[in-house]
Each structure stands twice: as structure tokens, then as C-alpha cells.
């Protein structure tokens, strides 16, 4: 029928975290306990906001400028592609990133970690993917920081990513990690995804091609959003 709507692929077994994961203590009272009600995608779920490039201010893709001086820390370039599960580039979609500074401190009132704020680093960035789904931004490598989840709990260094895609059904918020970080193995948020291969896809890789000699190392991080089903959802 003409009003049938093609939905999106469901996640492969164990490749997405469950709502409740006890080692990450905050999930215990906040994760829904009832099984989500399965519903067909309708027009409401397969549409979504499209943001104009015009919303981006100057140099939102460069967290190392714009705050009155150079931030402390190791300058890095992060780039990659946003694709869907069918391998198609997700074009002209908004990617929002945020992170701690090099000392592991967020510019946020509630972050009381005793590490210095950096007057030259706000930790916020926005980019749009191009016609090939590519994005790129410049920042400094974030530090690890302590949290109160358990004794001696430290988050591995990470950059938060928020990606919209073309539909509400594709919305994704995730975190990018760095290769070789010893804290990954003991981080409940990282380990909440049971499938090891899915987990390791959250770890960026050193991006030799995009390193700039005598200027900055580069890391590559690709993001995959849900892909559209080929046939309408069957009831």
C-alpha cells in the first residue's frame, strides 16, 4: 500500500547496551524496566529535523581557537564518516561534540573535579557532514577524569558525539575513545555493550593519512546509523 512506511533495521544481538547495567550504578534507578513496546515506524519516526549549515558559527569545527588563546594539551584532528547500515553516506547531518579539557575537567558547574579549567577551552564543537558523509574537527586530546561510580573510578578519555541522521529513528548519541587506553577494560559505560566487536568500534584509530607533520596527530572515527529496511514493516 502506498501509505506503508519503510522502517529501520533492528540492532544485532548485544551490539547495543541494555537500559539497566548494574556496574554503571546510575542505570539502576533510571533505566526503564518494562520491555519497550514494539511499534511499526510511521511517518513520525522516519522523518526528522534537517539542520541548515547556516546555524554553524565561525570555527565551530575547531575547539582550539575562539577562546582568546591556545588551549593546553595535545592538539588532535578527528575525522571520519557517518554512514548508515546499508553503507550509504549520511549527508549534511549535524554532528555535535563535547568533551573535557586536557586535564580531565569539563566546563560545567557540576564538575567539581580538582583539575584546572582552561580559559582557552570550552569543549564544544559542531560540524555538518559533507556530500560523502565526512566530518572533521580539530580539538585537544581530553584527559581521563574521576567519577563516583565505584572506588577509583576513572573514565577513559573520550569525546561525546551526537548525530541526528535523516530521521528520528536514526538519532544516536555515543562516545569516541582512544586506542590503547588502559581504562577501557575497567569502564562500566564502555563495557555496557556486550558484543566485543561493537565495543571496539567505539575506539578510534590513529589516522596516519590525516596527521599533520609537526602539528597534530589525527584519529579516525566512523559512525554508523540505523539503515532503512528494504521492504515495508510487516504487521
Amino acid at each position, binding site marked *: 500500500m502506498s501509505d506503508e512506511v519503510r522502517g529501520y533495521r533492528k540492532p544485532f544481538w548485544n551490539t547495543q547496551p541494555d537500559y539497566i547495567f548494574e556496574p554503571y550504578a546510575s542505570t539502576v534507578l533510571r533505566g526503564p524496566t518494562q520491555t519497550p513496546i514494539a511499534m511499526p515506524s510511521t511517518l513520525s519516526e522516519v522523518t526528522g529535523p534537517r539542520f541548515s549549515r547556516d546555524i554553524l558559527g565561525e570555527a565551530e569545527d575547531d575547539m582550539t581557537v575562539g577562546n582568546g588563546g591556545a588551549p593546553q594539551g595535545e592538539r588532535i584532528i578527528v575525522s571520519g564518516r557517518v554512514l548508515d547500515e546499508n553503507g550509504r553516506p549520511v549527508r549534511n547531518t549535524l554532528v555535535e561534540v563535547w568533551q573535557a579539557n586536557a586535564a580531565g575537567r569539563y566546563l560545567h558547574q557540576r564538575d567539581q573535579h580538582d583539575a584546572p579549567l582552561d580559559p582557552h577551552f570550552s569543549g564544544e564543537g559542531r560540524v555538518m557532514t559533507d556530500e560523502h558523509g565526512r566530518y572533521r574537527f580539530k580539538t585537544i586530546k581530553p584527559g581521563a577524569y574521576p567519577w563516583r561510580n565505584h572506588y577509583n573510578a576513572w573514565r577513559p578519555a573520550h569525546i561525546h558525539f551526537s548525530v541526528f541522521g535523516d530521521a528520528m529513528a536514526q538519532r544516536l548519541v555515543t562516545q569516541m575513545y582512544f586506542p590503547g587506553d588502559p581504562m577501557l577494560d575497567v569502564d562500566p559505560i564502555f563495557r555496557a555493550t556486550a558484543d566485543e566487536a*561493537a565495543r571496539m568500534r567505539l575506539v578510534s584509530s590513529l589516522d596516519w593519512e590525516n596527521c599533520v607533520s609537526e602539528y597534530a596527530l589525527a584519529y579516525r572515527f566512523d559512525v554508523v546509523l540505523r539503515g532503512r529496511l528494504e521492504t515495508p514493516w510487516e504487521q
Partner: protein
Amino acid sequence: MSFQQTASQTVGPYFIIGFQNGVHTDNAGDQAGAVTIHGRVFDGKGTPVTDGVLEFWQADANGHYADASDAGFLRVPLDADGNFTLRTVKPGRVAGPNGTLQAPHLVVNVFMRGLLKHAPTRVYFDDEAANGEDPILALVPVTRRATLIAKPSTDGSYVWDLHMQGADETVFFSY
């Protein structure tokens, strides 16, 4: 690379650093028929959630979704008491499966520290007769439908509270 969806990770407590430029709580502007929806979000102990954010997506008053803009999108952070307030126009009815029409609703994604992946839900309006024939509400057990319905209050605004857990746990969807 693999073509499986990237694993979701929590927005954490400091998401506003990345989300602040996209905060948008008023879709109505000076349009006629503006409605206000407000409410609170509670955890499993009934404690207000103060570090979360709701994102909404809706059709316009004629039941049309924007196909090339962000008109119809709202991003509303929870305040220090767990409250949110938004202004919008009530959406028109949009097509549902199998030739049905859906009742006016907004699609909602809930994000917060402690949610490893966002929780998708919907909000409907209590004073809409069309709720009785909505194909998605019909999938929800009768006893839980009220969790998806904003109720008019005496000042003309709508109230919609969310409970992440407990006897009144809000209905969340997968699609």
C-alpha cells in the same frame, strides 16, 4: 568497517556543553493556538531527574512534517528541579499504518545521565477524541496509556510527567 549501528553511549552529566546551541523550547512563536506542555521527569525512587534533556519532533498544525528544515524540532533540557516547559502548536493528524490516521502527538526521545541509550516515547493530548482510534496507542495496554497523555490543567496548559520506573513507568517504544 562494519555496517552495524554504532553502540549508543550515555549523554553523561555534561551534555549541555554540546547541546546548548541547539536548545529550542518554543515552536509556536506568535502563531495562533499555541499550547504549553510542562512536566517533570522522575527516577525509580521518585527523585526528579535534573540532568536530562527531552527532544521532540512533530508535524505542523496541518499534519505535515518539515522535510528540509528543523521546524517541528524541540530540545528542552530539564531544570534543577527536573521540570521542562515547551510551547508549540498542536500538530495535525498524520498517516499511520494500513490507511489509519494517527491522533495528534509528538515523538519524544529522552536522554539523561544513566541512560545508556535514549528512551523513545510519545506524548498525546487528553482532549483529543482521535486518541481512541490511534493505531500506536492501541498497541499499549489500556492500563498504561495514561502515561503517554498530557492532561489539561486549570491554566490551559498541558501537564505531562515522565517516570523512568515504578508503578507509573512511562511507556517507551522500540521501532
